[in-house]
């Protein structure tokens, strides 16, 4: 469980920017939560605060002892792969930094299998498509066995088909129990994606970023590709869109 109480974040630059104000949010155990909002409304900032990567200017962040610190892993929009490392070496990076290569190196192969990356271990990033690069980015996040996975518009630069496929796969992977991930926090500006994946959707309004609404997605947890064309799906989508105006 992760809880934010009255969190504010101000960036001090040439001009001060209030990126977030008065954020109260609780992420339950086993939840898939999405954060949507227009560009620049503070989604990335909120995700980084949830993951403990930056500290709030005021307010507090509490995590239950069960969700221990250090079990957060990030996936960014730009997969940020190191060009001089093969896919496998990129995924090994977190292990090298944590000094756990010898214990966990064997896990790389199964993570590659789970993400459909089998056979690409020795490819360099420049030899991989955008979708494959992002799979490597996800594999790198999973290898350190996080309990909370934090994704910041991971599929924003991919084409529609690849994005939908990766959405399906992410959901499968999360539910399958093949990973240690319990919670997923997913930032996107794509409403379809948020509805399809989530238990709840947080709608942020911009400048300063405040929570406008938290919407529960009461679709069955078994999400098949067809669900995208259902009446319920459409009405949820319309509802979010109207709130984002």
């Amino acid at each position: 469980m992760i809880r934010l109480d009255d969190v504010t974040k101000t960036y001090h630059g040439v001009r001060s920017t209030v990126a977030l104000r008065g954020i109260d949010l609780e992420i339950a155990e086993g939840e898939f939560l999405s954060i949507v909002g227009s560009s620049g409304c503070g989604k990335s900032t909120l995700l980084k605060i949830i993951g403990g990567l930056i500290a709030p200017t005021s307010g507090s962040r509490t995590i239950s002892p069960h969700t221990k610190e250090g079990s957060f892993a990030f996936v960014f929009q730009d997969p940020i792969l190191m060009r001089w490392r093969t896919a496998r070496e990129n995924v090994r990076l977190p292990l090298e930094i944590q000094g756990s290569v010898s214990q966990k190196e064997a896990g790389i192969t199964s993570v590659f299998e789970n993400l459909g990356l089998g056979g690409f271990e020795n490819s360099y990033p420049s030899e991989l498509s955008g979708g494959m690069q992002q799979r490597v980015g996800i594999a790198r996040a999973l290898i350190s066995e996080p309990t909370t996975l934090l994704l910041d518009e991971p599929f924003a630069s991919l084409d529609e088909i690849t994005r939908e496929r990766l959405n399906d796969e992410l959901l499968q992977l999360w539910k399958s129990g093949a990973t240690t991930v319990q919670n997923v926090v997913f930032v996107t500006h794509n409403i379809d994606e948020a509805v399809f994946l989530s238990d709840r959707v947080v709608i942020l309004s911009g400048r300063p970023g405040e929570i406008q609404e938290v919407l529960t997605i009461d679709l069955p947890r078994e999400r098949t590709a067809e669900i995208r064309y259902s009446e319920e799906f459409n009405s949820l989508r319309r509802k979010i869109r109207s709130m984002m105006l």
Partner: protein
Amino acid sequence: MNSTLKQLLPPILAPLVGLALWTLIVRVFSIPSYLLPSPQSVLTSISTSYPTLLYHASITFAEALAGFVLCIIVGILFSISFQLWPITRQSLYPYLVATRIAPIIAVAPFLLLWLGNGFFAKAATAAVVSTFFIVINLTKGFDEVSNGARELLRSLSATRFQILMKLQIPNSVPYFFSGIKAALATSIAGAVAAEFISSNSGLGHLILSNYYYFRTAEMFGALLVLIAGGVLIFGAISMIERIFFSHYSMRRES
């Protein structure tokens, strides 16, 4: 095959055309050989005196390469210290440019004065004028890692030292190669400049002593050996970069 031939032809033909023009000018205007010897007489001088040339070349290149290695070591140490201890960067980096602005030929006498006029003073001159290029390029390579990559490493709780080792140093590899290529040229220039001021061996000494006797063909011979040696080392460095470090390059290989 045809297109590679087309690419290779101009750089092969250009010097041949140049040599032909050179010969023609010397003949047509009957230029005295102490002013401009013909290519033939330069070649003759090289072929008759090549043991001497090689002897002097070995001295100059030993000085230049010792200085080159020294400037790489010192340059790496400075660059890393600039990253790990910002105070060293703040206090020293602005003055680095002074080592570049000061003319080599004006710096060398001081080094010869302090270090004696032997091998070490020449290597030191070469190193002093070259360190700048290593530090400037490495620092650029260390600095120009994306904010995203820094953030990723911070999210993995990497230490300052790990960020340097896993991200900044590998990222700087292509910059490092640019730096050492520039440093190679100035190392050779530094060694020759020091020889000009005080020495009784080396290609710099050879050029200067032949100059006093108007032995221009011999001067050309020494200059050509100097250039050929430098180009050879430069080519070797480029080859090492291409063969062993291709994945560090910014170019996206297709």
